[in-house]
């Protein structure tokens, strides 16, 4: 190929230079502007960020009640923490005492520092809430079922990483609140000693001590602990979260989009006239994909697919949720400051020393037994949640709110049972104390295994087994168990947040707290 002879090499060069901006754009967006269905499809295909999403989206998935946008909201909140977190790293210094003054600087001196820190803190809270609600949505619409079991497990891992991010971030300001919450957290990691001590094994076998030492890098919460929490918070856990998130999104597509009922098309009815239910301008080479798609291809022998182009329908919805999430974070950041107490003092505990609100349910359990409340019951709950899709192999109700036998009524029933049981157990423990007060000589192992927390968990388990037998359905049992644990978690969190004062005593209101 040679240039036309009439043009001098210099002219060609100038011409190429003039065309460079246009060609750079073309090289980036090979398919041109996404104006037709066809270019929109290729636009989604050809973009590494968009291609995690389908080219066309089923109309069922776009209904507001299908997802309530909770997963996207959680992702949006994560992005907000990512951006604000990197900004905060400009000034934050992870060293005891200096950390505290650097947070003070961010709050009082750095331009917009206070606002950015508030946003970071609120986005983290929004993330925890939306992740929990998203899990509840997936559970109640039975969307964890085959073939989505693996994505449910990835989701649980994401929940754990989200809580880990919050926990590690909590120490960084190095104030009293942070210091004592982390002291308690690190000692929960050490709490397997409650068992090994009772069996007098600790000298030879001490997993609790090892966990605590790996977490803190020392035997006290000090500079080593701070740098470790910092590295976990800004590097290890975010990286893990992004990797898991990519798998999570990818699997949604690979598992056939969001769960929907078998008769979704009939339930939806005909599409509104301004949408494109049929793939009118299909790309020419789809047979490549046909070779690797397992099972029957949907469109064959079933008429037009009930899908609409993801661009714009899905993407605009996602963008809308992103904007709303950012708006909520900003609004909360304007009305409420992130807390900062006095400089950490290793000799005088904060009283009451409270963890972040989403751990206060756990703290309530921990106030009965450190090991069971902090490690035993959470592990049982996590394992139970992970097993749900493998025990519930039913098909009725997939993709429908409260789908499966029992339905909405069962969920309501379970909510009442779960709340009542938690209230009763708490009331007894608060009013009458527990085994130690009744039998002072009782061995610790008995309390470890028989305490308000384990009794509550056992009651929930028994109720769930009763439901399985009554409805002859694992889904009914799972529904009972999940609802009970959710209600118990909420109730314990409320008690821990609003009704516990100095010395973790029960008070009807903070105005009754003793002054000192």
């Amino acid at each position, binding site marked *: 190929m040679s240039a036309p002879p009439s043009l001098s090499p210099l002219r060609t060069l100038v011409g190429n230079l003039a065309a460079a901006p246009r060609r750079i754009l073309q090289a980036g967006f090979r398919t041109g502007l996404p104006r037709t269905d066809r270019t929109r499809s290729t636009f989604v295909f050809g973009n590494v960020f968009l291609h995690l999403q389908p080219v066309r989206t089923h109309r069922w998935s776009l209904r507001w009640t299908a997802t309530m946008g909770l997963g996207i909201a959680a992702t949006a909140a994560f992005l907000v923490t990512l951006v604000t977190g990197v900004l905060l790293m400009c000034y934050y210094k992870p060293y005891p005492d200096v950390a505290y003054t650097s947070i003070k600087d961010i709050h009082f001196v750095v331009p917009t520092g206070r606002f950015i820190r508030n946003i970071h803190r609120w986005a983290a809270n929004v993330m925890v809430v939306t992740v929990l609600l998203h899990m509840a949505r997936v559970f109640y619409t039975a969307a964890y079922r085959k073939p989505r079991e693996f994505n449910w497990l990835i989701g649980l891992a994401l929940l754990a990483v989200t809580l880990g991010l919050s926990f590690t971030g909590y120490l960084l300001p190095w104030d009293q609140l942070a210091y004592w919450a982390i002291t308690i957290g690190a000692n929960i990691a050490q709490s397997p000693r409650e068992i090994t001590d009772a069996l007098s094994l600790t000298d030879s076998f001490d997993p609790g001590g090892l966990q605590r*030492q790996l977490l803190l890098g020392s035997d*006290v919460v000090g500079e*080593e602990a701070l740098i470790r929490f910092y590295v976990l918070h800004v590097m290890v856990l975010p990286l893990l979260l992004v990797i898991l998130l990519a798998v999570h999104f990818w699997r949604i597509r690979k598992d056939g989009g969001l769960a929907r009922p078998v008769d979704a098309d009939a339930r939806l009815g005909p599409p509104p006239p301004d949408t494109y239910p049929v793939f009118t301008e299909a790309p020419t080479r789809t047979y490549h994909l046909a070779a690797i798609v397992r099972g029957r291809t949907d469109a064959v022998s079933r008429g037009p697919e009930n899908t609409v182009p993801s661009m714009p329908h899905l993407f605009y919805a996602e963008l809308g949720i992103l904007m709303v999430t950012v708006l909520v974070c900003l609004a909360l950041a304007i009305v409420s400051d992130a807390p900062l107490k006095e400089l950490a003092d290793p*000799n005088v505990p904060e009283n009451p*020393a409270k963890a972040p609100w989403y751990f206060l349910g756990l703290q309530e359990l*921990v*106030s009965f037994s450190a090991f069971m409340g902090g490690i035993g019951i959470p592990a049982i709950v996590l394992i139970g949640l992970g097993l749900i899709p493998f025990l519930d192999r039913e098909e009725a109700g997939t993709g429908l709110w409260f789908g499966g036998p029992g339905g909405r009524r069962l969920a309501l029933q379970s909510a009442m049972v779960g709340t009542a049981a938690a209230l009763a157990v708490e009331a007894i423990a608060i009013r009458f104390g527990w085994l*130690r007060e009744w039998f002072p000589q009782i061995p610790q192992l008995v*309390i*470890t295994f028989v305490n308000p927390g384990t009794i509550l968990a056992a009651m929930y388990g028994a109720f769930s087994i009763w439901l399985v037998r009554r409805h002859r359905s694992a889904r009914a049992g799972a529904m009972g168990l999940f609802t009970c644990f959710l209600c118990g978690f909420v109730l314990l969190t409320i008690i821990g947040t609003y009704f516990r004062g100095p010395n973790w005593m029960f008070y009807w209101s903070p105005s009754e707290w003793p002054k000192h």
Partner: protein
Amino acid sequence: MSAESQSGPSRLDPEPMPRRDFLGLASIWAALGALAFATIGMIRLPKAAVLSSPSKKFRVTLPDSLAAGQGFVPPGRSVALFRDAEGVYAISLICTHLGCVVKSQADGFECPCHGSRFRPDGTVEKGPAPMALPWRQVTAAGSDFIVDDAVAVPPGTKVRA
């Protein structure tokens, strides 16, 4: 053709484990073994061999006015010293539940974090604490005392100046 298939392996009649497959599997397992070994080595690093915390052994001068049953907490330490007719003794102030610093009072010790209460001798009275507050080693050094906050002694061990 039959002579060929008897003489050596062919695609129609492969050997049970072709040499290439064997070598491939062996190298994969070797790589996995190396990875496991490296992982164990990497886990070893974060477990500190030397802890950075300050020495737990310190010298303390008890105030003359210290009454029997009244705790004296040296500044910056989490151990309380007591003096009665039988001698001087030290009780750790780290709660055996979740590591908060308990407050020494006339009637025992109280933990601010989860409400554990201990009797004056350190045994648990109520709350979630799984065991008694440990007693610490005290040795007399002239009119002063040396306390080792890392060494536990049987409860009831008291020393005279």
